[in-house]
């Protein structure tokens, strides 16, 4: 459903015509109803990839290659057409709900804003749909949450609001950019389970971006490992992790193994 070919992104590093490569010729495919993990360290270019797919890179970025999504090359769409893709067909859940939510707008209104951008609905319908979304992401006391500002919510609640925002227009594809990195570990597990449940219900394709291989083990069917702007390895999750072919993947896996020494201990 989404085919990325030879995608390169370079940022203008201040000086005229001097570009720094962030993504170097990336190729991959995403399939409907499947979770693909994108594994990489910070600075490897994984978040840049997410922004490139939505075409929300800051000005001064040079993009080459193609992103074919639902039969159209996103890099060749006009800005107006692209806006109809963003949030509606391809949506994103950001890492830190404390930053991704507007601090001075009630969260209910922030979901309505997304709905309004893609539907010409009456206020009552927008309101009803928002409340049903809040319900779907497992929030209680919906009328209170609707009126709450982000700082009045816990981290887990705010992250659920972000998910509701992303799912508002029933996208065909969801990009989750480290959606659990800023949460406590017990909440992380809940959010992960929620994402997986909703992905099944909506039959979405999901690109799950993280630096933590253990998360991918539970959620992703396929993984791509990104290192310094290149995808160094991709394949079925179990295969990549049990027999890593690339040196970088190997070091990641061994770091993970050290980390969960205790898991082996207690098993």
């Amino acid at each position: 459903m989404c085919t990325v070919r030879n995608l390169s992104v370079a940022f203008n590093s201040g000086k005229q015509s001097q570009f720094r490569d962030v993504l170097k010729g990336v190729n991959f495919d995403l399939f409907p109803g499947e979770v693909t993990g994108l594994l990489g360290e910070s600075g490897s270019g994984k978040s840049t990839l997410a922004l490139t797919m939505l075409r929300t890179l800051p000005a001064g970025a040079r993009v080459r290659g193609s992103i074919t999504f639902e039969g159209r090359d996103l890099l060749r769409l006009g800005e107006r057409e692209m806006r109809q893709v963003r949030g509606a067909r391809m949506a994103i859940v950001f890492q830190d709900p404390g930053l991704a939510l507007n601090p001075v707008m009630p969260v209910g209104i922030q979901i309505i804003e997304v709905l309004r951008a893609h539907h010409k609905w009456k206020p009552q319908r927008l309101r009803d749909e928002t409340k049903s979304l809040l319900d779907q992401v497992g929030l209680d006391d919906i009328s209170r949450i609707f009126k709450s500002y982000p700082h009045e919510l816990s981290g887990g609640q705010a992250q659920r609001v972000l998910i509701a925002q992303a799912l508002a227009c029933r996208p065909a594809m969801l990009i989750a950019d480290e959606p659990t990195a800023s949460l406590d570990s017990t909440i992380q597990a809940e959010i992960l389970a929620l994402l997986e449940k909703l992905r099944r219900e909506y039959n979405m394709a999901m690109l799950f971006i993280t630096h933590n291989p253990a998360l991918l083990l539970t959620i992703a069917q396929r993984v791509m490992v990104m290192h310094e702007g290149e995808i160094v390895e991709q394949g079925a999750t179990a295969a990549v992790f049990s027999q890593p072919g690339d040196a970088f993947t190997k070091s990641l896996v061994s770091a993970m193994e050290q980390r969960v020494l205790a898991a082996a201990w207690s098993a």
Partner: protein
Amino acid sequence: MAAFPVNADYTESYREPLLRVQGLNKRYARSGFWSKTKPVQALSDVSLEIQSGSTTAIVGESGSGKTTLAMCMAQLETPDSGDIWLKSQRLTGLAAADLLPIRQKVQLIFQSSASALNPRLSAIEIVAEPLDILGMVRRERRRELALEYMQLTGLTADLAGHSPLTLSGGQRQRLAIARALTLKPELLIFDESFSGLDLILEAQILELLRTLKTSCGFTYLVITHDLSLVAGLADYVAVMQSGKIVEQGLASRVFLHAQHPHTLALLAAMPRWTIGSNAGSGA
């Protein structure tokens, strides 16, 4: 909770703990001139002993009071009641002037320590700065000493002239550790110091800590929200929830025979790494 009895198979004979905290209470009432909000009990009757040469971990989620406890231990926060001893010296109630040498002995490294390094100084100046301020060592010796500490933490001499801005996240974290080491602390407290790091960098820093511990006999207190981080590191684990230590004991006991539901929940949330269990099932 009474002071936790030291487990016999951890220390063969009872030694005096390096740091002892007993019945610590701390309450934050964020009150202004007009408003009084509900006070938050950040610490409630917390007792803990840190054995010399051991690694102790305090595990808790955000708001559990773990950072407040660290701040109290480092004398950066004053508890409402309870006592803190460093070896045989009672720290609570000491005058501010007497606390100064104590603060050197207990060094706190925050998550943001690495990003709080002065960008206008070079790496070696950052490490040498505490020596300059205290004037403990002769001027000529300071640079040498700073370089030694940099090398101890795995930073090569050619990085000495670099600004922290040009260093990687892992290198900056090492620099923060080197800087703390110059004061020859007896206890190093890491407050979420590794949460900003990637897996590989984190593994390298943890390896560094293990090496320093065996070679120099350091005592660590690691404060984290992530139980799996301390699995291969800590000798002793205390689990905190809403200001209380709900469970503490030797790491092996806490990991293998946890009692408290909160510890069990944290254990359940630990990442699993058993390849082939459910991965690829939906493909």
